[in-house]
């Protein structure tokens, strides 16, 4: 019984983190249609920034997050500036251009930070430990859950309950109609990159703390982001979170029953099944929304 609770906690924390990683990608992709394969590299950059602030300047881990939150939107806006030069067909060309950018960034990080694996704050302290049951929630899991859920909630509130958010969603759903409603879709693009940068800024330190960072590690983060995003449909925070949990829990359950090497098969099957059954994404309420 407690074992299952433990799996639930581990899977839930990881799943929330997946959702956090996917949020920024989803927002940027939805609003600007930029298929950003260098997304993971930006998370790594943010992670490296946090790592060096923590390591060399002795900043506490949670102290590095504000710095990343300031720096990364700038980097994301630079990326937007870069991608604005990409011509149509935008989606596929941005994919290839960012593939090239990812290569450049990977080598840049290799030269700057060396190939070593970095881990922020490796020591763990239990946040909640019930010796009788064996249930343990570590401070990292707790932090991961809190920050991921808080970020998701904030993005949700932004998109659902502010006027700006409505404009962003309108741009995601029907770009031309949004333009005709007087929305400056250009500015929405900048905003999406800025918000995406904020989310990258948050996800980076979390990534460096939960997992390790190394120059070639961005691909994994990008894959998580793409998977969850298309899993859930673009610009839907709730289904993103749901998708993250589903993947996290499915992986944990697969590792439990079948063994760690079957994890990917289970999440792949889950993903394919969902795609085939619900092509418009998780919890997709189908209107005339074209995939």
């Amino acid at each position, binding site marked *: 019984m407690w074992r299952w609770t433990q799996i639930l906690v581990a899977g839930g924390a990881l799943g929330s983190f997946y959702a956090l990683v996917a949020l920024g990608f989803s927002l940027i992709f939805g609003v600007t249609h930029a298929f950003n394969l260098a997304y993971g590299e930006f998370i790594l950059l943010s992670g490296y920034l946090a790592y060096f602030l923590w390591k060399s300047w002795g900043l506490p881990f949670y102290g590095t997050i504000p710095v990343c939150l300031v720096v990364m939107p700038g980097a994301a806006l630079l990326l937007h500036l870069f991608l604005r030069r990409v011509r149509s067909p935008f989606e596929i060309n941005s994919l290839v251009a960012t593939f090239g950018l990812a290569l450049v960034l990977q080598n840049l990080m290799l030269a700057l930070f060396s190939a070593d694996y970095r881990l922020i704050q490796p020591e763990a302290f239990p946040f909640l430990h019930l010796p009788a049951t064996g249930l343990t929630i570590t401070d990292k899991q707790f932090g991961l859950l809190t920050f991921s859920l808080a970020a998701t909630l904030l993005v949700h509130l932004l998109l659902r309950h502010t*006027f700006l958010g*409505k*404009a962003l*969603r*309108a741009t995601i*759903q*029907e770009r*031309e*109609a*949004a*333009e*005709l*409603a*007087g*929305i*400056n879709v*250009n500015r929405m693009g900048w905003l999406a990159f800025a918000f995406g940068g904020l989310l990258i800024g948050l996800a980076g330190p979390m990534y460096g703390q939960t997992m390790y960072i190394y120059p070639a590690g961005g691909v994994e983060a990008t894959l998580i982001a793409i998977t969850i995003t298309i899993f859930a449909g673009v*610009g*839907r925070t709730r289904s993103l979170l749901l998708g993250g949990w589903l993947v996290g829990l499915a992986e944990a359950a697969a590792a439990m029953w079948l063994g760690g090497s079957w994890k990917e098969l289970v999440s792949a099957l889950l993903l394919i099944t969902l795609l085939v059954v619900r092509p418009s994404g998780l919890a997709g*309420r*189908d*209107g*005339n*929304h074209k995939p």
Partner: protein
Amino acid sequence: MSVEHLAVCYHGAAVIQDLSLQWWPGKITALVGPNGAGKTTLLKAVGGLLRPVAGRIFFRGEAIETLPVWEVVRRGIAYVPEGMKVFPQMSVLENLEVGGYLDKTGIPSRLAEVFSIFPELQEKKRTLAGQLSGGQQRLLTLGRSLMSGPRVLLLDDPFLGLSPRLTARFHDTCRALMAKGLTLIIAGQHVARILKGADEAFLVEQGRITLSGPGPELLSHPHLQAILFDGNLP
């Protein structure tokens, strides 16, 4: 409002060449013509969606052809696209609110106005727009355009795919809007219906204006009939 020597290219092909015309405020102007004549392109150029390669578009004495779309909308020109361009994952209310994006303070009053014109939208204001019927989505598209408080409405094929009853309804709405001082420019395929109600009408052929005059008068013009009805009166 006037268009002077306009030329617009679409995917490299010149769709409109050297087209000039004038619209008078507070009237219904019709643009008719065969498929591919450039009606939609003209409306899109005026609405700011396409940038002309040559020529000028004046609105209240100001050249607007290089302005981005939202600036054009801010000046009071609203292009209502053909088809159903709603935000499918947003509620009807949200759709309308987004329509008033440029002037947030005016939203409540204009919302009331739109709901008075289209009461069925008020009934369904919590429904997702994607779940509305086709006709309702058209109404919503129009309603959303009205939310920006336009002076000029550019309606692109507004009757496409609507039932006759709804078409009549739509037409009445247009009249009512005109009575409120709006300028309407209607382009479309339902030539007879459009021309009958138009104060002023233009025939567009291959990117040029070939005929102009009051709507009913134009309808009976032999050239127009030759082109659009193969000589048979509808």
